[in-house]
Structure formats: structure tokens, C-alpha cells
């Protein structure tokens, strides 16, 4: 069984958070708060020293997490512990390939098997994925496909042939958490993706408010949304006061659950 195979057909909510941010103890509390809202998916970001596809907010969260000396092993243990609190929410790891390679790809997969349902390897494109995908398939962990506005139809078709879990549609040609959203472009691209696959299409990158979430739901054909940077931004808005942060995080998640 893979929890991602039972996602609802509409209004899927996926929430991203960096593991170990701002430190291991608080990170666990943050994830418990997120989990208590029962989102469909939680994305666990593993901090990396050189997150080249991330914007300043996620970069900063990685840096803070690494400063608190978080290790991959600790992140995976944290995810394991959280799994005990919920068997419903799909767990997805989002990270850079070097983290997995250094840990040992086989060991990594065997450590997350049964606990984690999917993985987004930001810097592992289709051309390079064959070996990794084989190992993931064997352990029933879905390799989540990213599609960008630069991916043309022929390429999308190839990428989506064996897509499982969900499709991560990058809504702006940009790094995470940046740029304004162009709904008509998103709508057009999501619709053409949906003609190619039955796997749910989720829109991510740049969703900052309830207004954005509603607009994606009303103006596009997307099956759900992914929110990351905006969740982390609240921490800095709360001037790094942890209790205040948890309150504003709670309020924000309630708002975007539409």
C-alpha cells in the first residue's frame, strides 16, 4: 500500500517544512502542529548546504537547521517518529541528490520504506533517474515528477508515462517561493498535463495566501496545491518567537485549507 495512491480527487493540500528547523526539538513540534491539521501530504525538506533550486526563505531555513547540527539520520528518525502519530497523511521527502548519495542510496531507501510514500529529488532529472527509480519502485516509494513551464508537451509525455503519486507542477519559472503567479498560464499548462496523466497535478512555488490558494482552485484545473516558503516565512514574521510562530502557523493553515 502507498498512501499517495489514495489521494482525494480534488483540493489536495501538501505542506512543506524543512526538517530540523529551527532545531530538532522545535522542528518536531512544528511537524506535529502541521500533522494535526491532517493535510493530505507533508513534504519533509532535508537541509542541504547548497540548495540551488530554493529561494531565500527555504535557504535560510536550511542554514538555520544545519547550524543546529541536524543530520540526515536525525531527520529520518524524526519522520519515523511522526509516522507513529498518523497513518493517514502521505509523507514525502524533498531533498537534493547528494544527501541521499552520501547516506547511501540503498540504506536511505530501506530506512524510509513503509514510512515515506514518495520522494522529490530536486536535482535528479528524468535523464538521470533510471537506477534510482528502479530501487524506489522495489520499495514502493513513488518518485514524484516535477514539471515546469519550460517542459514542452513531448517531454511532458515522456516524463509522465510512469508518474505515480502526484505531479509537482512548478507554477512559475522561478525558485521556490518567488515570482508572481500567472493564473491563465498555470490553467493552460495544468489542463494540458491532465490530458496526459490520471495522476493528480499539484501546483507549487509561489502560493503565499488564502487568496492564492482559492484562485488556483477556482481558476485552474489543478487537483491541489503545495505550500512551503509561506509556512516558513511566518517564523521570521513572528520574529523567531516560537510560541507566536505556532499560533500564526495554525491560523495560516486553517486559512489555506479550502
Amino acid at each position: 500500500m502507498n498512501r499517495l495512491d489514495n489521494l482525494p480527487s480534488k483540493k489536495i493540500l501538501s505542506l512543506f517544512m524543512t526538517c530540523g528547523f529551527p532545531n530538532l526539538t522545535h522542528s518536531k513540534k512544528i511537524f506535529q502542529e502541521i500533522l494535526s491539521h491532517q493535510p493530505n501530504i507533508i513534504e519533509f525538506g532535508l537541509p542541504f548546504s547548497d540548495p540551488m533550486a530554493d529561494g531565500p526563505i527555504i535557504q535560510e531555513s536550511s542554514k538555520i537547521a544545519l547550524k543546529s547540527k541536524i543530520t540526515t539520520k536525525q531527520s529520518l528518525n524524526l519522520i519515523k517518529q511522526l509516522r507513529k502519530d498518523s497513518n493517514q497523511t502521505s509523507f514525502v521527502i524533498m531533498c537534493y541528490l547528494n544527501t541521499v548519495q552520501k547516506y547511501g542510496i540503498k540504506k536511505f531507501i530501506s530506512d524510509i520504506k513503509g514510512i515515506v510514500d514518495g520522494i522529490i529529488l530536486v536535482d535528479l532529472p528524468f535523464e538521470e533517474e533510471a537506477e534510482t527509480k528502479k530501487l524506489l519502485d522495489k520499495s514502493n516509494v513513488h518518485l514524484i515528477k516535477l514539471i515546469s513551464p519550460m517542459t514542452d508537451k513531448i517531454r511532458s509525455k515522456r516524463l509522465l508515462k510512469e508518474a505515480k503519486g502526484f505531479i509537482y507542477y512548478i507554477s512559475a519559472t522561478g525558485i521556490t517561493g518567488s515570482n508572481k503567479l500567472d493564473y491563465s498560464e498555470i490553467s493552460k499548462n495544468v489542463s494540458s498535463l491532465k490530458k496526459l496523466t490520471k495522476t493528480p497535478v499539484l501546483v507549487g512555488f509561489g502560493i503565499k495566501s488564502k487568496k492564492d490558494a482559492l484562485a488556483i482552485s477556482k481558476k485552474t484545473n489543478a487537483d491541489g496545491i503545495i505550500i512551503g516558503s509561506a509556512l516558513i516565512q511566518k517564523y521570521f514574521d513572528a520574529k523567531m518567537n516560537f510560541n507566536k510562530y505556532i499560533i500564526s502557523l495554525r491560523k495560516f493553515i486553517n486559512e489555506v485549507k479550502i
Partner: protein
Amino acid sequence: MNKYNEPNTLGRFGEYGGMYVSETLMPLLLDLDTSYQKIQKDKKFQKELSDLFKNYVGRPSSLHHAKNLSSYINGPKVYFKRDELNHTGAHKINNCLGQILLAKKMGKTRIIAETGAGQHGVATATVCALFGLPCNIYMGSKDIERQKPNVFRMKLLGANIIPVESGSKSLKDAMNEALRDWIKNVRDTFYIIGSTAGPHPYPKMVRDFQSVIGKEAREQILKVEKKLPDYLIACVGGGSNAMGLFYPFLNDKNVKIIGVEAAGKGPKTNQTAATMTSGTPGILHGSYSYVLQDNDGQIKEAHSISAGLDYPGVGPEHSYLKDIKRAQYFGVTDKEALSAFQLCSKLEGIIPALEPSHALAYLIKAFKNKHKGKTVILNLCGRGDKDLFTAAKAIGFDADE
């Protein structure tokens, strides 16, 4: 035995290289690869490039017999491939001209680049001025501080310099920011990478554009010595000047090849940039190669007195050449490079950049009283003007106005 013709179509040199980038960049890199393959066969393109090499850069650069240094070493006959005589003072211009012509062909209207020592930044700003394209240079704030003359040069040439405050505030972080810029502005922007690093096709493309160095050197040495050299020596940061010299000699089995990395305060300290002597294979900036990293795969900060070698990664082709033992790599400390910098200035009347001073230091150290009757070509890939303040400070000379 097969002739050396790496990489394969996916940009693999053995197991190294590849394209480890996000999906936003992937279509663009594939497009770049196709366009690059086309211009390789395009006679008009190649003619335009060689005209620019000749009339704008001043190629071929000379092959100078460094007699005084040779007798000081009391070993082999040393030749300098003098790419420091190029317009802009280093080998970087070779690659920038090639890439900007390609950018033009591809209809790109905005140029970005990263720079460490500022040589690649200056070369990029130069070709942007020549071709009238807007130029944005990412540079670590630490490097801006230690390479002030080059910062001013870039500004004069009309470039916009974007200081990078993240991480170690040097070359690695400048490259992260440039890649982020590219992801954001993927449609109109061309990223001129300055080294044989990064995702495919960059390592191959940069090597090819730089291989003019080795092609010339091969012809020149055959003319004066009537035989191939016994050794090639070049410094290696990302590795573009070295690949440029090495590549045309890779099939000449009797030519021994030596790359010299910056070992900072020592290869066993934490303050080194000697990726291949102190690092392990990993993924950085889109390719699989040796990197300086910790047990968790976090990339370490590099250290070198030379901003151009201060990089925790290395081009994938070098990793491959190391593993198949076609080339050997050694580390040289800041201190050793500084003395070679001074020695070369005094003996040959050539003030070298701190980068090739590392290659010089290795030559002086390892060839002293040895290898008599042999010939060496050392790539003098940059001149030392940009390093005067750094060197003065390190030597203890007050160079302030």
C-alpha cells in the same frame, strides 16, 4: 585502445559529470547541447571565433622558454604557455567569446556569470561590452573585497555586479546565485559558466573552447623542440585552463600530465581547496565529481589565497583523468604559491597570477635537480596585476596609497 573522446552523450566522463539540475533548467540544457553541437560544425561560427581569437584576444599566445627559471630549478627545460598575455589578462576570454557567440546564435538577450578571482567576470563583461549585451556578474562579497581591481574593471566595462552574501561568500556561492538567477530568467538569459564545472554540456563546451591553448602549445613545441613535451603542468580550481592545455595531448601517452590544486593552509587542514586530494565524489552545481564534503554530504567551504582556485568542486573530466590515472593531481599551499609568485617575478620578469603560481610552486618543488633533459610546458594562465594587493598584504608590504 580507444582514442580519448569523452564525454558520452549524457555528459559522462566515466561515471563523472551528468546533468543534475531541476526540471526548470533541463529543457534549456538540452537545447544548449543541441545548439552547441550545431555550431561545432558551423564553419561561419568557427571562422568568426578564430578571427576574434586572433584580432581581439591576440592569439596565438606565445610559448616562452623560461631560461632563468629552468637554470634555477636545474632540472627540465621549462616553457610557459603565456595565456596571461591575452586581452583581459587570463585564459578566461577564450571561453567567453565562444559562449557569447553561441548565446547570440540562440537569440538570448541577457548574460549572467559567476566569478571568483574576477578574471572570468572581467572576460564576461568584456565580451558583453563587445557584443552589446547586458551583463550581470555574481561575485562573493569576500572576493569583491580581495579582488578590487577586477571589480572596478567590470564596472568600467558596464557590468552590473551582484554581491553574494550567502555561505562562504566566494565562488561556490556565486555559482549558486547565478544558477538561481538562471532558473528565474530561463527564457531570455544565457549563463556563461567560466569553468569546466557545472552540468553537461558546460564541462565539455568550456574545455573545447579552451583547448585552443593546448592546440597551439602542441604546434609550438613541435616546432621548437621537434618533439612532444614530457610534462604538462597547470593549476586546477574548476579546471578550465588545465583542461584547455591537457585535452589536445590526452592521446599522447608519453606526455605526463600534472594538475596542481590549492591546498590552502595544508591538505590535511580544514582550510584547503584541494578537492581531489582531500575530497570524495559527490554532486555539486549539477555534476558528479570530487567535492569537499562532510559525512552528511554537506559541501564544505574551500580556502585558498587565490580566489580563482577557492572552489570545493572540480570539473568532472579531471575526476575521470585522476581515476583512470591519465593525470596526477597534487596540492600546493598558500605559502608555497606565494614564494613561487615572487620567484617567477624576479627570475623571469613575469608577475604571474596567484593561480598559476600554484603550478609554478609544484614545478619548483618537485622538479628541483631532477628530470634533466626533459621538457615541461606550464600554463601561465593569468597575470598577477589583480593579486598585487592580496600578495602585498600576505608578504607584509604596505601597498596602500
